[in-house]
């Protein structure tokens, strides 16, 4: 029976799922990378994702265009990012715990809104497959890489875009400076708080799109707590990827590969003790973190509040 998992068509199917399932991880973890590179740990990603997922779904459910849904989600994400920035940057609160506050707020509010405004689990027709002409006709690779909905492509596009913004723009330089040495950056006239507000709003927007990619892209439903802790994994992926966009991409693919394998094993009724298998990515993350915690260069000012001297 295990052979069934290794036929060519199944392998293509698994890899296709892997590429597709990485979408929310990518959006959320890339957004989190911006915040962490500027020195702010946002543990509330999961809450922002849920809010984004709900609002995108609600807008589409009410009969509006899918892109309007994405835009509304972005707006909500930016607001949630501002809330986090106000608490962590302006009020200089303990970042880990304020993130938990934001998570609970997003979890509670999205469930409250869902139950009040929609009530029961409904479906919508989300973004449809957009096969890229010619490329999607390539044998194997075509289906794996070029036969997805547009949010999937966008997620992968965000990898080089994020890399470019962080490493090749003035904003990126400021982000890295603020994350590494806020005192020095401040002396040079960079607004530490301004930069951190910006990165948290970018992170919020991307986390909300991550949520939207679930509710109007991959699953096309909204349920209470539908992210199931995915946002927390996204935070860990940033550490996993050593704060580099390529590393984040690798981590996201790893997690989605395991998810894809599990989905397909279930679909094909292959008796892998799947509960044990699904523990693997988490155990692996801990192991990787344990081996790399000392070597990697994390933003020196990560999770440290900055208060200007008098």
């Amino acid at each position: 029976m295990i052979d069934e998992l290794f036929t060519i068509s199944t392998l293509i199917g698994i890899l296709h799922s892997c590429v597709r399932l990485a979408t929310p991880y990518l959006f959320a973890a890339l957004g989190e990378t911006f915040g962490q590179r500027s020195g702010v740990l946002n543990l509330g990603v999961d809450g922002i994702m849920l809010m984004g997922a709900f609002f995108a779904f609600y807008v589409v459910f009410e009969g509006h265009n899918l892109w309007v849904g994405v835009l509304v989600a972005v707006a909500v994400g930016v607001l949630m990012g501002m809330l986090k920035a106000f608490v962590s940057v302006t009020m200089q609160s303990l970042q880990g715990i304020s993130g938990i506050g934001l998570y609970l707020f997003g979890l509670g509010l999205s469930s409250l809104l869902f139950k009040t405004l929609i009530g029961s689990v409904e479906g919508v027709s989300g973004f449809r497959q957009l096969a890229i002409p010619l490329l999607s006709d390539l044998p194997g690779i075509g289906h794996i890489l070029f036969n997805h909905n547009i949010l999937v492509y966008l997620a992968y596009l965000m990898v080089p875009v994020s890399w470019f913004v962080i490493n090749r723009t003035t904003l990126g330089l400021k982000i890295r400076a603020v994350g590494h040495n806020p005192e020095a950056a401040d002396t040079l006239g960079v607004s530490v708080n301004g930069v951190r507000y910006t990165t948290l709003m970018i992170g919020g927007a991307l986390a909300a799109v991550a949520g939207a990619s679930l509710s109007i892209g991959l699953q096309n439903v909204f349920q209470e707590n539908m992210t199931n802790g995915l946002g927390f994994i996204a935070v860990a992926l940033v550490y996993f990827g050593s704060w580099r966009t390529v590393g984040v991409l690798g981590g996201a693919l790893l997690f989605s590969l395991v998810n894809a394998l599990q989905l397909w094993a279930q679909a094909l009724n292959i008796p892998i003790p799947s509960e044990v298998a699904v523990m693997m990515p988490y155990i692996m993350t801990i192991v990787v973190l344990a081996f790399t915690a000392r070597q990697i260069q994390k933003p020196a000012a990560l999770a440290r509040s900055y208060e200007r001297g008098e």
Partner: protein
Amino acid sequence: MNTRVYLAKLIDVLLPVLAMLVALLVGILLLLLLGSDPVKAYSALIQGALGNVSGITQTLTKATPLLLVGLGICIAFRGGVINIGGEGQIVVGALAATAFAVSFSKLPGLILLPLTLLSAAAAGLVWGGIPGLLKARLGVNEILTTVMMNQIALRLMNFLLRGPLLDPEHVAAGTSIPQSAALPESIWLPRLVPRTLFHSGAILAVLLALAVYFLLWRTTIGYRIRAVGLNPHASRYAGIPVPKYVTLSLALSGMLCGLAGAVEVLGVHHRMLEGLSGGYGFSGIVAALFGKLHPLGAIPASALFGALLVGADKMQRAVQVPSALAIALQGLVVLFVVSSDLYVRRRTRRRVGEDGPEEAVEGAQFEEPPAGTGEGANVASADVASEGAGREEDK
């Protein structure tokens, strides 16, 4: 104690209450926006939680695991680490208690009960101790590892409740509800009020609150845990083995959460089932923060949040306002409480002196730590310090 210090302490205690009030105000706005009647909703909430014996006993029943988790969070925070793994530690505690009690159900209750509680404590200890050890020895961020351990615990539960721990009667009857067999009746925690769920686990929790207070403020171990939490650098120079106490505070934290799981099994459900952790791992953090990270403060705080959870359920049934409101309110309380810390920190700094260096502030707290001040700076510096220490050892 002079009036100024006294007043400052009073404000410290009142700040969380103020945060709660502001959160409730935001809740009113939310309800108005959603077209619900806030007066009806809130009165249903209060009525449901405190209006009659049934409500009050349910509140206290919910407060029990919240208090136990809250105590664990207090220890971790005081030791300068953040434990977000409460959910997972509750689950492994409950699983261990169930597995032990079901396997040795022939033992007399008087022996079985303490051993069952011990196995839950041990499981929680391990589940919290692993992130503690990784943090202490390798500098791995404990927030991430505790989050991962939560996910692993949930998967472990899914596996055990569908396999080894699945109720044999259910298997025989052909139903497939993922829950364990019932625990022997001899070790069910006695009910304090007949025909309610309110059980004697509450007494255990309050006793443990006193014990944690004693541990933290009256023993050398507790003194060292707090010293490491306040200033790991100074602690290291004072000869305190910092890694050991970092591990210990997370392990003890996990142990209390594990006990929370056991108490839920032994007192409420009498078997292990899915969803047993019920968000207590997070609500316990809220209660601990609300109680200013003081074990005795956690007692009224957990009662308050127990009331909020019970009241919200009743509100949902009575006036159809979703109970999720309570979760959103908890989130707001956390956001407001952690924000108000800025005020406390600034005042502390003023008291120490103009432009006093951070060390001076921490040194001052070293003598007589005012409850819950300056946690922000301290936890962050613990993080940096343990990694800094690691680098030096590497060379």
